[in-house]
């Protein structure tokens, strides 16, 4: 029982971490109808920037407070992500107004390659460390109820909290502001949005910026968990089932999807895996998502796919 709870909790928290990455996909898709293949690369790029600047800033300025160095590095990395967003809009998206999804997807692939190359050129391709003071040792709760207690990974717990906060903020942003509405309009029809005076370039810079910051937060947390190196970009593959299960257009969906996928894959691996030789969690996550899609083809919270004649 205790172990079941532990697995459950572990799944929930892993799910929250996926949600962080999934959120980036959802943001950009929701706001511009683009499936951003570069999200993984953005996470990596942002994390690299953060990791390296938190190392360089103390060297350059002699700051030796960890907190200060991290805050400064976060700010610099944030600024870099802003610049990236601005350049992407200028150089890529503004030339691809009103093009089909597949074309835009391809463009983001180009961006992904570019960012991977640039990131490694600027920041190196070794393994780097982000130390934001996350506690590494586990805590045990409910020791009175279960023998040995239930293990909780504090780092994951904090990460989950941050993710939840971010999602709450973003949901508000989409639901309550007129920019939120404009974003959705852009996603529906670039040209019509232009024709009524929505400045696509500004909207896209805003969205990519927000997505960049989300990538930075995701990169920071995953980076502090895994160390910052290339494989960080592959975390995106774990986040994809989350995105479709929750619905490509739903911010809260990213969280719920994350929780379901997290729990589903951990339970399956732990309880089902041993019978078939293990290693099933990744495909199980996708199959799980697929199962949900068969009932709701637009994901749990996604906007209904409209086909009308």
């Amino acid at each position, binding site marked *: 029982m205790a*172990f079941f709870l*532990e*697995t459950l909790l*572990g*799944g929930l928290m*892993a799910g929250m971490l996926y949600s962080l990455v999934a959120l980036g996909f959802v943001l950009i898709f929701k706001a511009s109808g683009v499936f951003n293949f570069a999200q993984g690369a953005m996470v990596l790029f942002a994390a690299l920037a953060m990791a390296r600047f938190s190392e360089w800033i103390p060297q350059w300025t002699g700051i030796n407070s960890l907190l200060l160095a991290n805050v400064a590095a976060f700010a610099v990395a944030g600024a870099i992500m802003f610049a990236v967003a601005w350049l992407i809009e200028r150089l890529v998206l503004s030339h691809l107004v009103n093009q089909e999804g597949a074309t835009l997807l391809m463009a983001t692939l180009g961006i992904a390659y570019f960012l*991977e*190359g640039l990131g*490694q050129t600027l920041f190196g*391709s*070794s*393994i*780097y*460390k982000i130390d934001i003071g996350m506690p*590494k*040792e*586990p805590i045990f709760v409910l020791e009175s109820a279960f023998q040995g207690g239930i*293990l909780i*990974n504090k*780092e*994951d717990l904090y990460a989950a909290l941050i993710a939840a906060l971010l999602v709450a903020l973003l949901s508000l942003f989409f639901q309550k502001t007129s920019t939120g509405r404009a974003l959705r309009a852009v996603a529906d029809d670039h040209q019509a949005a232009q024709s009524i005076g929505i400045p696509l370039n500004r909207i896209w810079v805003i969205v990519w910026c927000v997505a960049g910051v989300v990538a930075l937060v995701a990169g920071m947390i*995953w980076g502090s*968990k*895994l*160390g*910052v*190196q*290339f*494989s*960080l970009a*592959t*975390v995106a593959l*774990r986040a994809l089932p989350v995105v479709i299960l929750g619905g490509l257009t739903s911010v809260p969906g990213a969280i719920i999807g994350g929780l379901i996928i997290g729990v589903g*894959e*951990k339970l399956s*691996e*732990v309880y089902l*895996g*041993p019978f078939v*030789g*293990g*290693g099933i*969690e*990744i495909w199980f996550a996708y199959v799980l998502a697929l199962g949900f899609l068969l009932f709701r083809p637009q994901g749990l919270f996604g906007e209904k796919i409209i086909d009308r004649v």
Partner: protein
Amino acid sequence: QAKEQFFPLLSYRTGPYAPNGVPWANGKQDYLKMVNARDGGINGVKLTYEECETGYATDRGVECYERLKGRPGVAIFDPQATGITFALTEKVPTDKVPLITLGYGLSVSQDGQAFKWNFPLMGSYWTGADILIQHIGQKEGGLDKLKGKKITLVYHDSPFGKEPIPLLQERARMHGFDLQLIPVTAPGVEQKSAWLQVRQTRPDYVLLWGWGVMNSTALKEAQATGYPRDKMYGVWWAGAEPDVKDVGEGAKGYHALALNTSGQQPKVIQDILKYVHEKGQGTGPKDEVGQVLYTRGVIIQMLSIEAVRRAQERFGKGKVMTGEQVRWGMENLALDQKRLDALGFAGIMRPLSTSCSDHMGSTWARVQTWNGSKWEFSSDFIQADEQILKPMVKAGAEKYMADKKMTRRNAADCQS
């Protein structure tokens, strides 16, 4: 035509395994530079090289191989990746270039009578696994004490990670310990469920068969689930600086196999610093020189060069060797302690000698432990148990040859 022996260098400096691939590649390249600078090549034959980026991907690796295999004076390939090794194993017999897969590749390719062109020098995953079990046995006070113990293998879900399984199963059968297998999907960024399972079964030991990001993640997850690091034993690909660097204190007490030392004291490393780095020709940063994987790269290159030197002894000093001749040199290496000392490898590795039937040359390794800031040796050299290994290798090689409709090389062929 200038007398040049060409060394193709397959490497990966980008992609998921770059943090490990880079020092490895740098070691290989620096040693070549050093031999040129210090000795002017091999008996006057200059050493040339070209790097080719594989990104750890098989098809890119094959492309690199095809691109470089035809160069004049090509000596030997080190694919630096298990997948590429598989593909090249099929190709080298026709192209007549040897493959050196030091510490990786197919375990059965130790049998040189079946695998004429493969050289898994210094160790395969079977020897590695065997040595680890022996070491654990020693710790427990005898292999018989393993009875009833639980040992878990957490492995990279790929042929690389799966290689040791047959040997471990054999050992488990012999000593009566419980073997639990937990695969980790590549590249290994998400291991929570693996470690939840470890926490559930609380094994006595965990063997870690990882590469790249999988290793550091495993250590962090172990820390997060409270599994004692000093019960964890990694293969030699899970025992280098990048694996523990960003875990730091959290990895303290973790053990891994070592094929070689690390550190800048050995003479050869000093030579590299002197002849290469001090002239500003170092391939990578200076502080990386002498790291575990860097040193392994140096060893690989040294063995390749010594194979050429050995071949020259037979086929003509100061001549450029063909791949076939290098293969012969590789098969007839005899590096005793004296020779190693002369080469500046004193203390770095154990003596090694190969033969037609044994392409491994040495089945020794020892265990090192991370003390929070550096690797320290924690055991003597242990030799893998021939009695277990030999029949397994033989059976595997026989099956391979049967599938391929090949016959074992005869004595005459061994001479050529």
